[in-house]
């Protein structure tokens, strides 16, 4: 590209120096805040003051960080679900729907099973049931993909709408098993008390956050060391090599998609044993499933990084929402703009990790 007498080129880097892996995300974040700051300034808010408030309410205050961790918990799970499938080049877009099914499945277990279970087993059983129903929701797309090569992108995405309407039907459209029978107000039936976890003190952080972080660490380690992790990495890198080595691609594809669905289902189950305690249509509003894909992409499908990006994302969300309550209230849409800017710059920043920007002065050549 030529700008006046200057020539601007992107040259591919042969190697990316280590410091760039840290510098690019930090630089991206910085640029995003500048763009957000322009928006703030235009709408009559002090950029610095607003950002300070945002960071305080999202990350540094006790109340802020505990709220953020509570929000991050299901987000870590959906982020792991997306990362697990995407790193295998299996584009499961259906975390949202699988999460709803996890909510439905775990609520069923919490209502129907938990009463017959000893206290210590109730929560694990409810969580596992949620994971299983999440996996079940991706079973059909997974089989179609593994056996016939049908695009899992379309099939998993479409099932999100089915799942959405299923939840609406259970709560608003019918007076069935999941609906609270004690009131005519449409809301979910509360699960057994033994199947619920209470939050830490008066915070909104639940013990499930430990499970979510533990899962990230466990997955990171397991996929690095196990034969399963090895075979999936070969298949992801080169299907022909996997075939050459006699690996069972069908089985691997199936298992990866099912486990991804289970992780997304677990996000819904954690919502049930934690804050919700029932099938709660409120989950339909927050979009943890889709956000999980973004979180995974930002983390470049690294399980450990998913934890960090999920917390960053949750913090921006919590902090952004609370900016509405201040002396000079900032509309929620500005917080959304900021989130979008963070995303764009983080993804765009990748270009600078892989390429080097080069600006040279060009001499005017006489046309031949």
């Amino acid at each position, binding site marked *: 590209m030529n700008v006046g007498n200057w020539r601007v080129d992107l*040259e*591919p*880097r*042969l190697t990316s120096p280590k410091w760039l892996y840290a510098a690019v995300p930090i630089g991206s974040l910085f640029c995003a805040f500048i763009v957000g700051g322009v928006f703030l300034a235009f709408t009559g808010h002090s950029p610095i003051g607003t950002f300070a408030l945002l960071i305080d309410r999202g990350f540094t205050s006790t109340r802020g960080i505990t709220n953020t961790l509570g929000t991050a918990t299901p987000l870590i799970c959906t982020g792991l679900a997306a990362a697990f499938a995407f790193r295998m080049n299996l584009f499961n877009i259906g975390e949202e729907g699988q999460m709803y099914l996890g909510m439905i499945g775990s609520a069923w277990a919490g209502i129907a099973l938990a009463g017959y279970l000893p206290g210590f087993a109730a929560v694990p059983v409810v969580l596992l049931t949620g994971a299983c129903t999440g996996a079940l929701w991706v079973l059909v797309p997974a089989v179609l993909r593994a056996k016939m090569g049908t695009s899992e992108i379309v099939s998993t995405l479409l099932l999100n709408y089915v799942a959405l309407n299923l939840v609406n039907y259970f709560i608003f459209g019918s007076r069935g098993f999941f609906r609270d029978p004690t009131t005519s107000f449409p809301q979910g039936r509360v699960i057994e008390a033994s199947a619920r976890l209470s939050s830490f003190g008066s915070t909104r952080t639940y013990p499930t956050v430990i499970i979510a972080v533990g899962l990230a660490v466990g997955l990171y380690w397991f996929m690095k*060391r*196990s*034969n399963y*992790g*090895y075979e999936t*990495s*070969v298949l992801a*890198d*080169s299907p*022909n*090599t996997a*075939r*050459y*080595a*006699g690996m069972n691609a069908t089985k691997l594809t199936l298992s990866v998609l099912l486990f991804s669905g289970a992780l997304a289902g677990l996000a819904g189950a954690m919502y049930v044993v934690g804050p919700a305690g029932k099938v709660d249509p409120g989950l339909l509003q927050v979009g943890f499933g889709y956000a999980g894909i973004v979180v995974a992409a930002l983390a470049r499908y690294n399980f450990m990084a998913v934890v960090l990006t999920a917390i960053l994302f949750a913090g921006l969300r919590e902090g952004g929402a609370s900016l509405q309550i201040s002396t000079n209230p900032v509309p929620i849409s500005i917080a959304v703009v900021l989130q979008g800017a963070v995303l764009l710059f983080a993804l765009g920043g990748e270009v600078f990790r892989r390429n*080097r920007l080069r600006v040279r002065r060009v001499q005017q*050549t006489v046309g*031949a």
Partner: protein
Amino acid sequence: MSNASSEAALGSHRLGGATLFALSARHVTKRFPGVLANDHVDFDLLPGEVHTLLGENGAGKSTLASVLCGLYKPDEGAVLRNGTQIRLTSPRHGLQNGIAMVHQHFRLVDRFSVAENVVLGHRNLPFRLRTNDLENQVAEVAERFGLPLDPKASVGDLSAGQRQRVEIVKALYQGAEILLLDEPTALLAPPEVEKLFETVRAMTQAGKSVVFVSHKLGEVVDISDRVTVMRDGRVTGSVARGEADTRKLAELMVGRDIDLSPRRSRVAAQDTLLHLDNVGLTRDGVDHISQVSFSVRAGEIVGIAGVSGNGQRELAEIVAGLQAPTSGEILINGARVNGIGIRNVRKAGLAYVPEDRLGTGLAPSLSIVDNLVLTRKRGFFVDRKAALDEAEAFIKQLEIKTPHAHTATRKLSGGNSQKVLLAREIFAAGDNSRVLVVCSPTRGLDVGAVEAVHKLLDEARAAGKAILLISEDLDEVLTLADRVMVLYRGSVVHEALGSEVDVELVGLAMAGLS
């Protein structure tokens, strides 16, 4: 500085008068990120001359050709046409100066006819195209240079050799005086190569000049009036016909003495390890392999020659267990292995080096260590410690050039990644695997790497392996094989002992003319 010197050089050639070069490069330098592709290269082409640019992959010969035809602009230096400096801005601009390049990968439209492809991109076409006139013109040009072509034929139906003829006719039709041919024989069968050489001679007789870009030593000596050898972006020598033999040229290319003489088994062949009995593969009513029978004994290499696409890939996959034959029997160590899957065939004692080394034999983004793990026995957890020791031993022993054992195999050169693959299949598989199927093991490799690969295969043979070598490179088969077979349309059409091969007969058999 470089400008001044090129002007001086330019002047002297003008004054010289007698030797006016059709095309010259003066101190051409071209850089790519991390690579100095051409480092002050000088090159001269006489009118009516066949001049070969010889060099290994990455030596910079294709870069120089691209500079000469106008595809790349040199960072420094100048290109001279008939003694006058020209500044080419595009290949079209090059064509206006009578310079055309035929690329290794053809740039033709499959759905168009030969005549349509030839006139494609020609600026001075009449508004209304008279197909008949065009076809006659194209046929006339083709005829003049001994290039038999049907101008009405659809390019999609043509063989590689015929497509190449279309490219050449296209260049001639558009008025090319200088033709740059990039690896022109890579896709041709021996009789087609001979035809190409006839065309080249017809062109030089008409006063046109031809630049051959090649890394194949043998053919270069046959056709060239002069050979300019490049290594690491520099010219290492320029010799006229008869001044140097292949061995000398190889030394200029690689920078050290190279031994490419035939290698034959030095031990008497022992018991049969691999046996094929009437093996056939029919799919969708098409016979891909029909009634192939042969055996390979311990301590010998059986070579299968043939032009690409005559069933080599299918034969290899059948023996390796990736495809099941639809008829016949395959025995490894006397045990039937038909359709038992590649894992079990491996257990029965087979190692397999596929043609596509990066992408089938090796996982490109995975490290050397992880690629060695690929055919190892793995428990629930992967033991990378043993594989790491193995990788480091191989790197030392086979002189694999890599920063370390955790480097992704795609970052290695072709020769080095092939060494990793061969090491795994020959040594890492253990003594249990004694049958080795190797497909085109040196395709695209440098002369130095070819020598190393051939040495490895020769050593494996001496160690008592039974090796089936399937290669589209006839020279390779003739260099290594104790017995030679030719595969044509899925059948073995010719068979001979390696030491008594009649090259002419093999060439005819490859073209289906036996």
